[in-house]
């Protein structure tokens, strides 16, 4: 969504309970449960969000801020989710934030010891927003398990910057800050890998795309909306129509919104 700074801060305040200043660059931290999101959040902000080695430690949005290269950042630690095809409260929180809050950068944190499972979420995020950085965390654990990941080739496969970290040891965080800055300021423009679905899905998508194309003023990927429609994902459609209303009723002239009646 292309929002002006004022609209954005209003939206964040009212619907996500996060206060953001107009000059702050915004970051969302997404990822599977228990991959170290809160640990990274703490390392970047110097705050002390609770962490713990079990899936589900964080169930609420937490936010904090930091400065890097004289630029102010606001970072939101989302609850861990296995997917964005949301069906529980935390998943909805995470999905709505990624879809409708429009952070300048989304950092998807992956567990290097179970790459395949974690890529599921990353690939879904890629469909929503191009401004993604993948943070490959728990590299120390992967090493202990004798797993070797070829980071440059992962970067090529995914089309987004990949930063390898061991957040608890503080390793790789400097590079993460740098990459966040570059993507947030547009210096680096990721081109995330888009999934080509099997022919059934693709042809059904083709049928639906024209209908959804003009729903959101291009603010949200029409392909993503069409996919959710095919999914029959009720909760997303509810959120979508909610946010469409917000988008229009609160931000556009009353006159305009009356015209349909």
């Amino acid at each position, binding site marked *: 969504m292309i929002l002006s700074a004022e609209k954005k801060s209003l939206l964040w305040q009212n619907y996500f309970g996060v206060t953001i200043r107009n000059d702050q660059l915004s970051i969302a931290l997404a990822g599977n449960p228990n991959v170290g999101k809160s640990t990274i959040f703490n390392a970047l902000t110097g705050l002390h969000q609770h962490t713990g080695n079990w899936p589900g430690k964080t169930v609420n949005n937490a936010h904090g801020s930091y400065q890097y290269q004289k630029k102010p950042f606001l970072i939101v630690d989302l609850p861990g989710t296995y997917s964005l095809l949301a*069906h529980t409260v935390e998943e909805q929180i995470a999905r709505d934030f990624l879809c409708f809050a429009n952070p300048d950068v989304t950092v998807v944190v992956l567990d290097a010891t*179970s790459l*395949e499972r974690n890529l599921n979420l990353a690939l879904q995020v890629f469909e929503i927003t191009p401004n993604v950085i993948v943070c490959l965390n728990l590299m120390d654990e992967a090493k202990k398990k004798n797993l070797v990941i070829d980071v440059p080739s992962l970067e090529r496969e995914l089309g987004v910057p990949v930063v390898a970290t061991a957040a608890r040891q503080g390793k790789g965080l400097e590079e993460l800050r740098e990459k966040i800055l570059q993507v947030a300021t547009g210096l680096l423009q990721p081109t995330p890998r888009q999934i080509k679905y099997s022919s059934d899905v693709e042809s059904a998508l083709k049928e639906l795309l024209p209908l959804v194309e003009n729903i959101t003023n291009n603010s949200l990927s029409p392909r993503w909306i069409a996919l959710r429609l095919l999914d029959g994902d009720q909760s997303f459609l509810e959120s979508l129509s909610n946010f469409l209303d917000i988008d229009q009723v609160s931000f556009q002239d009353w006159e305009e919104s009356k015209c349909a009646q």
Partner: protein
Amino acid sequence: MKNAERINSLSDLSLGSACQIVSLELSGLLRRRILDLGIVPGTLIRSIRRGPSGDPTAYLVRGTLIALRSEDASQILVRKLSNGEECV
């Protein structure tokens, strides 16, 4: 079906052995959850351990351990791996 005799439910899988997912006979939220964890048709899965009282069972799938109750696992149909097939 050609090898119908080799289609079992996941809950019948003996500890330590591996198999391949054929289909999920689950519905609703649970189906979604299981899919999201990467338990989709074709996935290899190995049963690792049972809880102290025999239930639930922990399965290794895509490198992570996931515990499922036997009622739920019994709704997941699997195919035994023939010799020489790749293991998890």
